[in-house]
């Protein structure tokens, strides 16, 4: 990503070109515009090609990082993308949305004294190059095994499982509840961070490999897991995401103008409501927007509201900057675009008018006390610090829980006390025979790449099961 180093370093990384903040804050085009060939060559040449690369150990799907970067520096981009595909079915996505700073790049030896190699930028470069210049030649797949796999959910973990198992020769069908595949990549992450065209192409790549896609199929309603087995599937992977929005449970939450981030982003991204009235799904346009929460979803919501024409957008968060769960780069981008941070601030009440519409919010100032169970310092209200702020649109981005739609219809699959699916570590096996699970429905809301890592482990275990037995 494009964080600027605090002090000048020798051999700095090649900065990612970006749209100007003033301009991009009002459009939906992608913020970073991508390396040129020359930039990519220059950045690739910075890689030390370590014999024991720490970066690879930091990658949940074990991408051969020095390998693909070396191929870029040799000018063999086709070779580079094939190297990436052998470990990662979604390089164009991961190059954009992985938190590289705490994974591969966080472990890069160059980072000890200066900037780590821009691994994410290079991964993105190779994938984008292939999309515009590649031959479209597919990686080899193994001979058909005759085994049928159903993947439930077409988000990052489901797509990874599908990609891994199709090349191993299995017959894979993905079931998606929405009318379009991609899961959080299409309904959650905004266009300006991950263009939907790119997600569509990554999915098209899997389809060309032979993966079948059934949209509008709500597993748990349209069809049950047991019925999938009756239809002849040999194994099932559940990667349905967390998908149950949390609210604040404070007075006034059902006023018009208060939306979960799930709803707001789904309208904007999946339904393309930012083009309303050219498309038919409306989205509320706020003048003074408040986003509750400080994770990546909160940043995405705030930046979307700004692009839709808000006069002010505030992030309201009860802890301090240090505890904000969003990636540093996302916070930086949001602030560049004019999003204000109201930290150590806790909303206590929504204020409405006689038409039941949101007009403001009452908040309390907080201070940090002793660390709580999460190890973070507990925010404590400052007595008498109540204040009101104007607000006609509030987006609640305080996390999500486990959606029971599928799990409640699958009683013989064990859940934990929070309703997430209980799985065996390292394999993703559930307590129901022939069923694996991974991603947010197992871990609770996490990142794209962790979901992909879980998918990779499950796919390996499923392959063993299909070839060797349970």
């Amino acid at each position: 990503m494009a964080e600027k180093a605090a002090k000048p370093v020798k051999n700095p990384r090649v900065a990612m070109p970006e749209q100007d903040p003033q301009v991009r804050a009002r459009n939906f085009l992608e913020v970073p515009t991508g390396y040129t060939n020359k930039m990519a060559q220059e950045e690739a040449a910075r890689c030390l090609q370590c014999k024991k690369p720490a970066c690879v150990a930091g990658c949940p799907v074990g991408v051969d990082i020095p390998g693909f970067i070396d191929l870029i520096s040799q000018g063999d981009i086709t070779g580079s993308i094939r190297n990436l595909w052998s470990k990662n079915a979604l390089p164009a996505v991961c190059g954009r949305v992985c938190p590289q700073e705490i994974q591969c790049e966080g472990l890069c030896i160059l980072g000890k004294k200066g900037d780590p190699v821009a691994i994410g930028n290079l991964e993105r470069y190779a994938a984008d190059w292939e999309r515009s210049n590649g031959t479209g030649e597919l990686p080899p797949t193994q001979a058909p095994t005759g085994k049928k796999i159903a993947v439930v959910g077409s988000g990052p973990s489901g797509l990874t499982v599908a990609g891994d198992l199709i090349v191993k020769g299995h017959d894979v069908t993905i079931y998606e509840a929405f009318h379009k595949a991609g899961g959080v990549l299409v309904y959650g992450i905004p266009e300006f961070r991950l263009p939907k065209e790119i997600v569509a192409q990554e999915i098209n790549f899997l389809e060309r490999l032979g993966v079948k896609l059934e949209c509008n199929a709500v597993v748990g309603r349209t069809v049950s897991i047991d019925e999938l087995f009756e239809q002849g599937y040999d194994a099932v992977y559940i990667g349905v995401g967390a998908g149950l929005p949390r609210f604040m449970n404070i007075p006034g939450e059902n006023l018009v103008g208060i939306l979960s981030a799930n709803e707001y982003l789904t309208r904007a991204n999946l339904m393309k409501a930012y083009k309303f009235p050219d498309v038919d799904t409306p989205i509320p346009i706020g003048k003074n927007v408040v986003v509750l929460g400080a994770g990546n979803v909160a940043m995405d919501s705030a930046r979307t509201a700004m692009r839709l024409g808000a006069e002010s957008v505030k992030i309201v968060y009860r802890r301090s900057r240090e505890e904000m769960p969003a990636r540093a780069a996302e916070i930086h981008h949001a602030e560049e675009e004019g999003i204000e941070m109201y930290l150590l601030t806790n909303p206590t009440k929504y204020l409405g008018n006689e038409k039941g519409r949101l007009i403001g919010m009452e908040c309390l100032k907080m201070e940090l006390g002793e660390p709580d169970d999460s190890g973070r310092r507990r925010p404590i209200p400052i007595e008498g610090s109540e204040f009101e702020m104007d607000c006609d649109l509030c987006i609640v981005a305080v996390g999500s829980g486990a959606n029971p739609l599928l799990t409640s219809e699958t009683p013989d699959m064990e859940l934990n006390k929070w309703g997430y699916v209980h799985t065996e570590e390292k394999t993703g096996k559930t307590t129901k025979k022939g069923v694996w699970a991974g991603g947010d429905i197992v871990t609770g809301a996490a990142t794209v790449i962790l979901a992909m890592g879980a998918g990779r482990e499950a796919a390996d275990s499923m392959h063993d099961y299909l070839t060797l037995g349970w």
Partner: protein
Amino acid sequence: MFKIVKREEMAEGTVILNEIEAPLIAKKAKPGQFVILKADEDGERIPLTMAETDKEKGTVTIIYMVVGKSTALFRDLKVGDTFQDVIGPLGKPTHLEKQGKVICVGGGTGVAVLHPITRAMKDVGNEVVCIIGARTKDLLILEEQMKNASHDLRVCTDDGSYGHHGFVTDVMKEVLEGGNIKEVVAIGPVPMMKAVSNITKEYDVPTLVSLNPIMVDGTGMCGGCRVSVGGETKFACVDGPEFDGHQVDFDELTLRLNAYLEDEKNCHEEYCTIRDAQ
């Protein structure tokens, strides 16, 4: 793609029936459940409770009033045309059990949703009194079907052009006075369901209403369809769509249903202008 195999106009063309090929949904659907439909690529996802399902033919039937651009788009689809997306069955089915004498009350297009529930109530052995109403005779739908689905059908019109002159609630009161009513199912416009629930509360008769709030996904993911029921927030898509009418905050529901009123009006007018110009 989901093909329309039958199309009918009712209530002077303001209400449309579409029978749609959707074998997987038809196989699973139960009375009280809904589907989400989307006409085309740029269309909106519209939830509608199913009026009929045919497992043999593999079809589901929806009956809707044309109120905005999305339903206007639906109206313009002919037999042989397709809905790009139909998702379901969603929501919980109606709880059905033999209780004795029950009343099914329907208003407007709510009658369409009430029809399969009424029939199922009869099928499990209840004695069903059915009361349906409309503003005027020409806007009344499914009279014949409701007659067959119940033991005793009463019809009302607001203007007195047919049947009882007055509201469904007037007739319902009479039936309630007769005593021994075990349950009331009321489906129709929000003011009607509210009025019915207020009355049945006085008589202490359990009352089921079917809600149709604004929603996006229909699977519990967006929370747009939240309704206050007995002081608790529920998601109509997964916790409903049917709730205890005595517990529902109908005033809040009304306000929430109006969230996009301006947008919808502008969008519909623009569509009609363009359509008429063609």
